């Protein structure tokens, strides 16, 4: 997983019609419209689709942070914990990631998803990523 967001959103995100809709302090905000393909129980978002949105926001945030440091390292996800706080309704959902700590070998990232009100998250994801230095060409 060497920078799936380096050249735009990955196929999985595009398949669910996710796109970068805004930036908060330079960090991309990812939007995901409601559709049958992201629906769980009728009228509500599927937890897995919310998780997918959170992961895309987290990856976008870490790439942003790496670029800001002038780093061309890649990342590898170690784990994720998703807390679901509110049911996701049948409407547009947004998510943004925050790199809590970016070290040399790992990064702690948090991503939150919301609908109408950013202060009322529907879910928060906590992720750990390994930082992978790029392989040297021809080495």
């Amino acid at each position, binding site marked *: *997983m*060497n*920078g*799936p967001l380096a050249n735009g959103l*990955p*196929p*999985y*995100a*595009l*398949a*669910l019609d996710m796109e970068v809709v805004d930036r908060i302090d330079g960090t991309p905000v990812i939007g995901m419209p409601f*559709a*049958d*393909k*992201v*629906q*769980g*129980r*009728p*009228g509500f978002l*599927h*937890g*897995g*689709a919310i*998780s*997918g949105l959170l*992961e*895309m926001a987290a990856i976008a945030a870490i790439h942003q942070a790496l670029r800001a440091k002038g780093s061309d390292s890649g990342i590898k*996800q*170690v*784990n*994720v*914990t*998703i*807390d*679901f706080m509110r*049911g996701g309704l*049948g409407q547009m959902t947004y998510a943004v990631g925050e790199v809590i700590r970016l070290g040399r070998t790992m990064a702690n990232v948090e991503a939150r998803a919301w609908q109408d009100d950013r202060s009322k998250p529907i879910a928060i994801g906590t992720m750990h990523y390994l930082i992978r230095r790029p392989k040297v060409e021809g080495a």
Partner: protein
Amino acid sequence: MAFNKPELGSLIPTNTAFDPALVNKLMGKFGHGGFLDMEYVGHGEDWVELAIDWRADLVADPETGILASAAVISLMDNATSMSIWTKLGEFRPQVTMDLRLDYLRPSPAGARVYGRGICYHLTQTIGFVRGFAHNGDIDDPLAHASGTFIRVGDRVS
């Protein structure tokens, strides 16, 4: 788009034991489960196994073809959720409270992904679950999952 489908609970027979294969025809063939096209694989007293096929549009990194980890989360969400009803022997409305996944290795391009959800403890309100995902060999898991589901009673509708 069928946003006005009847509630899942109203579609599940109440006079017979919970049947994961039957319920997957709802959860795995409509909505997000349908997008991933989840297949019922098998079940036991307290577990349910589902599977999804690798697809180009489920990829996280086009260079490697590695599957998006979110697809594995969705698979484990459905499998663990259904394991609760399987252990309970009947459907009860619930939502995911939290779910953790540890990614032991990537799921390679072209490989089918199996997700086995296990309900290891049930209370009146909470279903405690764990599980793992693999590519066909249960001794070579690609991810481990753990989480909790909370019963929502009438608030689901």
